[in-house]
């Protein structure tokens, strides 16, 4: 079997499995899995930049929040229906990531990390500053009546699961397609050796900018869907913690792998879910996992699997 065939079979099988789980799982885990799939879409967005282009951003919460508030405010303040609101979230993410990318890409390495962190912090503070419209830390609820998309009530658990599955499928197939396209190959080349990519005649800045915008827009889409599916938008989604989470998920699952974001998000979600039953200090787990990963498994779960067993894994 050719590699492309194998990979299509594997990822198609994964999507079919996730689709089938809807009918098999009890209600509690079904709700969790819907949440995990939306958050994994966010992680996929992060992975495009971190895993495939090799740029470590500490400010992706800004894009997630841009999508969430672009969508949320369109409904909450302007009374739009969900479909144009989602588009508004997407455009918000596109614009914010274009501006941030254009400025931040003038720096590299540690400076890039700090610049993205600072932009995200400024974004979070801006949400608090305009608390009169965004309701700051408290956030706002999107009513059930406002969450009906094309006649489908997204607050219903089954519909919500399918919507989350749809979003995740699109994002997964997008990365799968991306890494086989010339554009994706150039991104990987930039990650591996930026100087060489430049010398081969590729416009490195334009490719990086496109990667930031793509990554930011996918993250914003996940943020908009999260707000719509779970009916809430709050400033806590713009905090540093939500910039750290996708990094953690992608690192755990395996940076630069197509399935890594889902594996990492699923693993971490249940780890925190189980430990929050024992202690309120559940972020301790996140800290320990981060340290252990940097020490012992910098390639993450899927990455280690690829290094040892399936070398063809995209």
């Amino acid at each position, binding site marked *: 079997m050719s590699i492309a065939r194998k990979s299509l079979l594997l990822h198609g099988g994964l999507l079919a499995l996730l689709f089938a789980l809807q009918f098999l799982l009890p209600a509690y885990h079904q709700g969790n899995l819907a949440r995990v799939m939306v958050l994994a879409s966010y992680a996929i967005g992060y992975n495009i930049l971190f895993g495939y282009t090799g740029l*470590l951003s*500490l400010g992706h919460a800004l894009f997630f929040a841009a999508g969430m508030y672009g969508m949320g405010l369109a409904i909450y303040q302007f009374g739009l229906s969900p479909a144009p609101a989602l588009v508004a979230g997407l455009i918000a993410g596109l614009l914010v990531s274009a501006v941030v990318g254009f*400025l*931040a890409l*003038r*720096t590299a*390495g*540690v*400076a890039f*990390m*700090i*610049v993205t962190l*600072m*932009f995200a*912090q*400024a974004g979070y*503070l*801006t949400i*608090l*500053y305009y608390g009169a419209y965004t309701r700051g830390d408290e956030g706002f609820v999107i009513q059930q009546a406002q969450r009906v998309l094309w006649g489908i009530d997204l607050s219903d658990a089954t519909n919500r699961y399918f919507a989350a599955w749809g979003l995740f499928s699109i994002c997964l197939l997008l990365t799968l397609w991306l890494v086989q396209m010339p554009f994706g190959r150039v991104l990987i080349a930039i990650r591996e050796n930026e100087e060489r990519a430049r010398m081969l005649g590729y416009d490195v800045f334009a490719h990086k900018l496109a990667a930031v915008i793509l990554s930011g827009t996918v993250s914003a889409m996940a943020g908009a869907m999260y707000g719509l599916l779970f009916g809430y938008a709050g400033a806590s989604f713009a905090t540093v913690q939500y910039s*750290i989470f996708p*990094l953690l998920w992608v*690192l755990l699952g395996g940076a630069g792998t197509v399935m890594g974001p889902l594996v990492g998000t699923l693993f971490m979600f249940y780890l925190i879910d189980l430990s929050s039953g024992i*202690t*309120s*200090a*559940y*972020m*301790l787990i*996140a*800290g*320990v*996992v*981060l*340290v252990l*990963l*940097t*020490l012992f498994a*910098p390639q993450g779960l899927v990455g280690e699997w690829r290094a040892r067993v399936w070398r063809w894994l995209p």
Partner: protein
Amino acid sequence: MDFGPYLILASLEGAVTAAVLALTAVGLSLVFGVMRVVNVAHGEFFMLGAVLAWWVTSMIGGHPALGFGVALVLVPVLVGLTAAVADVTILKRINYDPERTIIATIGILYIIQQLTLMTYGPDARPVTPPFNTRLAIPWFEFGENGLQMYWPWGLSTTSYKLGVIGAAAAVLVGVWLLMVRTKIGLLMRATQLDREMALAFGIPVERVYAIVFGIGAGLAAMAAVLIVPIQQAHYLMGGDPLLLSFIVVIIGGLGSLPGTVVAAVLIGLSDGIISVFFSPTLAKILATLLVALVLVFRPQGLFGVKDA
């Protein structure tokens, strides 16, 4: 109150912030300068200092000054040792790779913060200042009888706040002397200039790194011990000092100690003044945007010199 006395009050508050900030930021700057790593857990070492100061002072009875004095000496050493252990067990093993170090220190940040939450709890707890006399400040104004001196209501500071400023200045001078007058300072500067060459000359670079990481964390802890009688010890208090130190270190020029001190005074004072007259949130938005733009357009810092 009139504008003038108000401004004096705001500058005094700003000066206290600046003093504490200078200590914290110099710690961060030292670590970045010598080791070329960004320590995201720096704010948590600050928090650990405050919490341990509460613990030490509550263990020791008698006059508040006694417990505070012990805390001022003991706590930075304890925190410094903790940091040195973290350096040897974690950072050394990932070879101080810049990006992996940031991820690892984010992990350390959550570990320290959450362990404090589990043991110390979510409450904010006060520490009694060792001395605390209220000092009123006079103000001059032209009245009907020419220049008049009077004591506006509310315009005052405490002897402790002035003490904090003095103590911070003394410690900063101490750090400077350590860097330029001692053997270990010489080793640190040599390592900063050229790590490979330092290794070739037989300098135990790894031990220097552990010491620098310890001193950096110790400085943050000392700043926290000084501020904790004014603020309170809380497990989430590390966020603001971390952000402000980042701002200061970047504006002052990464790794430059004099630049860091100048930037700390500038940021501390303006933060105090802007926060009094405008919204503190707005002050923070402007400061974070300023940092991002400085990094983008003037990466050597506002006071730094461009590398050739």
